[in-house]
Every structure is written in C-alpha cells, then in structure tokens.
C-alpha cells in the first residue's frame, strides 16, 4: 500500500508532464515531421519568448498575484530597445528595453502593494496604458530605422550555437537563474509564504509589501527581456507585439500546476505548461487543422489538461 501509494502520488504529481508526453506522441503519430530536428528547434524557438514571460508570471502567481500587463510590456520594451539601439548601439538598446519592463513592473508593484489596488484591475489598467505608450511613441509604425536594426541584434534572433538557437539558450539561462532564486533563496521562500498566507507571512516577519513589489518588478524584467528577444526575432520593434501573451502565460503557469490563489508551484512545471501551449499550436499547424477547428481543439486540450491535473488534488 505504502509503496503503491507513493508511486501513485509521484505519477499524479507529474500529470502535466504526462500530458505533454501524450501530446508529443500523438503529434508524432499524426505527422512524421513533428520529430524532425527542424521542427523541434522551431518549437523551442517559438516557446522561448513565452517561457521567459512565464518565468516572471510564475513569481507573481506564486506570490498570490496576477499580471495582465506582460503582453503590453513586451510590445513597449521591444520598441524602446529598437529605438535606443538605432541611436546608441545594441547594448544600450537591450538594457533600456529591459529597464522599461522593470519600470512598468515597479509601477504595477507600487499600485498593488502600496495603494492596495487589486492586481487584476491594476495590471489591466497598465496593460491598456502601456500599449498606448508603445503606440504613441512609435505612432503605430514598427521601429526599424532606415537600414533595419543592427546586424548583431538580428543575428541573435536567428543564429545558433551547436544547432540551438540563441533565444532558446537565453531562455534556458534565465530559467536557471530564476529557478534558483525561487527555490533556493530566502527571497523565494518569502514569495511562497506571501502567496500562501499574507497574514502568516507578515506575522513571521516577512516584509510582504516589499516581496509583492519585487515580484512585479521581476515579472516586468522578464517581460522586458522577452520583448527584446521578440524584437530580435521580428527584426523590428512592433508596438502591437505581445498581444494575448498575458493570458497564454497565465494559462501556462496554471497548466503547470501552480495555484492561482498563490503559494504553490514549481518553475520547471511552468516550463512544461509553456511547452504544452506551444506544442499544441505547432502540431495543429503541422497537421493542417483548419483554424476554426484549431480553436476548438485548443479549448478542449487546455481544459482537459487542467482537469487531469486535478486528479493530483484528489490523490494527495
């Protein structure tokens, strides 16, 4: 009983991973291209931007919050990075893109942690506001300059190291750093505590407001990084880039098993959620499924994956 029980618990804890594996097996059976090396790199490349956004989103969600503004941050920071880059070089561009994300994150955090506005409404407001800024700054047109963005920057979006695209390597690096922060540092434990019970964390000496603030700053930074990465892939700063990323990222985090009320989750599981979302559209495209049917399939898979994951709660 005990051994079987533990085994069952372990299996059940890995349901998101099993769902991902099942999806990959099904895709391989349905399309012989799915496992081709081109396609695997494709999937990883497509997942990279979402993965970086979802890293920050995981912090916010585990900390008991919610961030709808990441998609707009991606748009704005990409445009800022492109604009600065055209004038002051790649490095300055990248730094200012990321700084833009951090600034928006800080503003979100202040409104939420200091003015006590609900995260939903605060980040909905900044989602609209920041998109407006991006459009205003660019007058709605992509930022490319006269001869395009610097070649070195575009190279980053397309080049590979040992066959692995640079954006994927960047995403892995960022994941590793933040996984360490979340799971191995005192700050990470405080994030879990704040999300799990604000009151208990407060009475244990956790500076809950500061933690809340920092969590949004982290989310802003990762969204800023993602914006810069996307600009490199799109070879331009696009003011409308990143739309819908907010919902996709939250979905990835929740599919990975983090509780939306906070206090629970693992960063590596979020990555599984990201891959589920990415493999889903990729394999539907490979199979040539009609776009209306694609929506239906995506809706079903999201709900089914989440429902399967609920078995975990049952067994534990």
């Amino acid at each position, binding site marked *: 009983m005990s051994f079987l029980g533990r085994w069952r618990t372990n299996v059940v804890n890995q349901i998101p991973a099993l769902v991902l594996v099942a999806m990959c097996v099904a895709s391989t059976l349905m399309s012989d*291209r799915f496992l081709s090396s081109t396609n695997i790199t*494709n999937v990883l490349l497509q997942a990279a931007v979402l993965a970086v956004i979802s890293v920050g989103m995981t912090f916010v969600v585990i900390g008991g919050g919610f961030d709808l503004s990441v998609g707009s941050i991606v748009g704005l920071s990409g445009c800022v990075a492109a604009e600065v880059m055209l004038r002051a070089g790649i490095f300055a561009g990248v730094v200012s893109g990321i700084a833009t994300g951090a600034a928006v994150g800080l503003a979100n955090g202040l409104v939420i942690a200091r003015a006590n506005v609900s995260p939903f409404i605060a980040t909905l407001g900044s989602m609209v506001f920041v998109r407006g800024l991006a459009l205003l700054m660019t007058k*709605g047109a992509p930022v490319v300059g006269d001869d395009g963005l610097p070649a070195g920057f575009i190279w980053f979006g397309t080049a590979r190291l040992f066959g692995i695209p640079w954006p994927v390597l960047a995403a892995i690096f960022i994941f590793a750093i933040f996984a360490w922060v979340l799971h191995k540092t005192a700050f990470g434990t405080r994030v879990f505590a704040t999300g799990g019970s604000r009151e208990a964390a407060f009475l244990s000496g956790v500076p809950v407001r500061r933690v809340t603030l920092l969590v949004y700053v982290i989310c802003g930074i990762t969204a800023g990084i993602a914006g810069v990465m996307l600009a490199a892939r*799109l070879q331009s700063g696009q003011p409308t*880039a990143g739309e819908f990323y907010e919902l996709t990222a939250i979905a990835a985090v929740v599919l990975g098993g983090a509780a939306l009320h906070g206090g629970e989750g693992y960063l590596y599981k979020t990555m599984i959620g990201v891959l589920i979302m990415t493999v889903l*559209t990729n394999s539907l495209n490979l199979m040539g499924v009609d776009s*209306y049917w694609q929506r239906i399939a995506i809706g079903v898979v999201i709900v089914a994956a989440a429902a399967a994951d609920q078995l975990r709660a049952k067994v534990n």
Partner: protein
Amino acid sequence: QPKPVTIGVSLASDVNPFYIAMKSGIEARAKELGANVVFVTANEVVAQQVDGIQDLVARKVDGILVSPIDAVAVGAAYDAAGKAGIPVISIARHANSANESAYVSMDEKKIGGEIAAWIAQSIGGKGEIAMVAGPSGAATFRNLAEGFDTVIKTSPDIKVVYRKDVALTREMGLKQAEDILVAHPDVKAIYCANDEIALGASQAIAAAGKGSQVVVTGLNGIPPAMRAVKAGTVGLTVNLNPVAWGRLGVDTMVEYLKGNKPTGDVAVKHVLVDAKNVDQFLPPPAVK
C-alpha cells in the same frame, strides 16, 4: 502523373471577411489545379504569423503564400523559408525581405488616395469629415490612411475632425459613428477602414435620421456592402476582389514552382464601386 504540389498559406487573419474571401479563392483555385493547400492562422498577431510560417517550413511544403501583417517582422520567417529552399510569395501585403520570391500586390496608398478624392468630390470639396481607421499598428491601414491624408490635404476646405483606430468590426463602426454624430453634428463624410465598420456606421447614421446628410465609405467589396451601396446607405466601397486575388496567388505560385518566375509585381485591379456602377457587382438575387 507528377506528385501534387502542397502550398502553405499564412493569411493575416481568419475572421476578417476580406481574408475569408481570399481563402475561398485560394481553396477553389488550388482544387482546380490539383494542388494541396494548408493554412496556418495568425489573427493579426505578428509573432504568431512568424511561428506559423516556420511550422510550414518544418512541414516542408513546396511553396508558401503569405499575407504579411508587417513587412519587416516576417523577415526571419522568410529567411527560414529561403534557407530551406521554399519560395515565398507575398499576397495583398508586402514584405521587406530578399527572400520574397514575388508579390501579388495592392497599392494601398493609391487606394486610400482614390477614396479621399471620391469623398472630396461627393461633399463638394468642403466640410468636416471623420476617419475610423483600422487596428493600430497594422501596416495596411496605416498605408491606406497615409494615402488618404495626402490627397485630402489638397482640398483646404475639408477638415478631418475625428480620427480613431479600431478593430474591424461592425460593433465598433456603430459605436464610433454614434459618438461622431454627437460630437460633430455637421460631419459630412465618414471614412471607414473596411466594409464591416462602414455597415455599422451607416446603421448609426440611419438611427440618427441623417441618412441623406452623411456619406460613408467602406473597403473590400463584400456582398452586404454592395447591397448597401445599391440601397444608398453606404456611398462607396472598393472592390478589392479578394476571391480573384486568392486565385491569382495560387496561379502565381504554381507557375513559379514550374519555373515561370513573374517579372515584377503581379497586380490585381481594384474598382471603386458607388451608386453609378454598383449594379454590375451585385451578388445574384437569392433564389427563394
């Protein structure tokens, strides 16, 4: 018997009637020619379009037809296709890529200018006009508006008193026009970025009882808009003939794959449709 070619298609949207019509043209022509088509979806999200084109490359289709949401943003995807030796032909919208094999074009600025000239003429060269342009950031609508502005500036007595970027839906046309009519009761014409917006706007105008005082222009030439032009509730639409466009795209691609590369851009003719010539474009009457 030669192996049938497979053409991958990435259109800018799958809910915009213009692209829905284009898609039907592509499907019909491909069927006639015995070619396979696979569509990927983008919905005006650039990153999604890049991903979709790359999925087509991974699928190793023979050629790809793309209607790029943005001319620059698709660069990486065009390059990936180029590297895999797959020709990419842009349709309706243009891409700034060395790997663009051909362009089945539309001169958006020119169309915008022609609409402006038509409006200027129909309101007698003076008065207030409003613009309900397409979604922010989309190149097509930026170009249309730019062409429109250039021409409208040549009539100094015409003033653009209202400008707004909106989603291409009838609801948006309705709401915007309601507010325009309150804010600017003297408005003479409303430029709408597509027919759906125009149909919504014309409803608001009718509801306000200003049917004869405000002209509305649309774009695309979908059947309901043609009927509205006939009924006089919409003043002008531009028949872009998306179905023929889609067909021409397939033709160009099939010829290209056979080795017949087009010289220069392949153009589709657009026609301004107003009360004078609408009869020849009306859809056949419904059979009861």
